[in-house]
């Protein structure tokens, strides 16, 4: 899915920073000396030219895209995507998934609409469970996102609303999960990430959980280090309750990405740690992902594109500690009602007429 948030980081970095204080100054001048101090401060801040650190949600974006965990499937699946319009984008998807060891056979219908500022997505499965999503971009730096899932089973129902703001050298996000106006319960999350140097960004995420009879607050620290060439990224998230997650991502060449992920739980009652290593090759017509982790699992996924409209997927996983294995095959077929000219491809020259 082309979520509008993924492109935000690039946009903010490109925006010319020198324009901002000139626009702000007249408004600020009404505040007297405090406003003067603020405009001096923001000018000084602009002159350092720190980059935007990216969103807190996207802290591990590169690692998640390289590791196989989010792409793995077993059994058989078929996705039929139909693009009905390019600008604005409108697409419907039929997906079938059968013979999986972990889930029942399922059918899912989805519709996606996206233009420059609005993204709408709706999905419904054979049981009538609904997934809904809206992203509304108010400006290049301000995005509001709403997600809801509705089903007969209250355990799988959820509502989430969040707002993302990306400043010149910082990002702020406020989120609420399952807020209820009746008893004011829900989970409220606020996060802030600030660039300190051109490479280093630090931040924090606070989770406030409010139930009928109890509430709790939990703050975690975030650190992100990006190399000067932007070809490797290291991140750490630490919760004082004893949960540590560290990731490392490196672009080894144009076509090869490497990622490592380490998660540890250190509490008086339990100690546990999992490490995974993954690599992704992007070849001309295919993508290969392979992964090894410390629980004894070795897995791989091949995504082979035979034609622009047809892709074939094979995945496999062997759990050496439990002596079990999973395999999956899949096809992705993309059809379009559009002619090549409408899709923005160069038109074929007409054959010359008979003399």
């Amino acid at each position, binding site marked *: 899915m082309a979520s509008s948030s993924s492109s935000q980081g690039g946009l903010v970095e490109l925006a010319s920073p020198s324009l901002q204080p000139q626009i702000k100054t007249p408004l600020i001048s009404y505040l007297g000396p405090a406003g003067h101090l603020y405009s001096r401060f923001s000018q000084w801040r602009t002159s350092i030219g720190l980059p935007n650190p990216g969103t807190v949600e996207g802290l591990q974006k590169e690692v998640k895209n390289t590791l196989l965990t989010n792409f793995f499937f077993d059994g058989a699946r078929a996705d039929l995507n139909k693009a009905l319009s390019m600008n*604005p984008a409108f697409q419907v998807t039929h997906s079938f998934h059968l013979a999986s060891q972990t889930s029942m056979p399922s059918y899912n219908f989805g519709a996606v609409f996206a233009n420059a500022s609005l993204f709408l997505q709706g999905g419904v499965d054979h049981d009538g469970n609904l997934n809904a999503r809206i992203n509304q971009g108010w400006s290049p730096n301000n995005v509001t996102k709403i997600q809801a899932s509705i089903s007969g089973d209250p355990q799988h129902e959820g509502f989430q609303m969040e707002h993302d703001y990306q400043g010149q050298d910082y990002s702020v996000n406020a989120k609420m999960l399952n807020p209820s106006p009746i008893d004011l319960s829900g989970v409220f999350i606020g996060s802030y990430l600030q660039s300190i140097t051109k490479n280093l960004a630090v931040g924090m995420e606070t989770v406030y959980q409010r139930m009928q009879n109890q509430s709790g607050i939990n703050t975690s620290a975030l650190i992100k280090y990006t190399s000067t060439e932007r070809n490797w990224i290291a991140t750490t998230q630490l919760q004082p309750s004893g949960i540590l997650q560290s990731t490392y991502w490196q672009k080894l060449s144009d076509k090869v990405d490497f990622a490592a992920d380490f998660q540890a739980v250190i509490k008086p009652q339990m100690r546990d740690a999992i490490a995974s290593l993954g690599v992704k090759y992007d070849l001309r017509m295919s993508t290969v992902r392979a992964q090894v982790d410390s629980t004894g699992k070795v897995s791989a996924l091949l995504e082979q594109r035979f034609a622009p409209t047809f892709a074939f997927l094979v995945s496999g996983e062997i759990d050496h500690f439990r002596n079990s294995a999973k395999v999956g095959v899949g096809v992705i077929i993309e059809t379009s009602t559009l002619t090549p000219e409408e899709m923005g491809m160069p038109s074929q020259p007409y054959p010359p007429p008979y003399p």
Partner: protein
Amino acid sequence: MPRTWSSLFTVSDDTKEKLAKGIDVSRLILHYGWVPFVIYIGYTRSNPQPSLIKLISPLA
């Protein structure tokens, strides 16, 4: 004016019932209306506009 600030946030049982009913109704509307709404928006804004049979059928 509320006498204390905490009384501002306490909701009467009657209002609670109304709120719960309102949430239930909007859930129902969202459940059955969302996918048709996305398809309607996509269908009317599409350029060029596709035919309806191509929209729904997986094979056409």
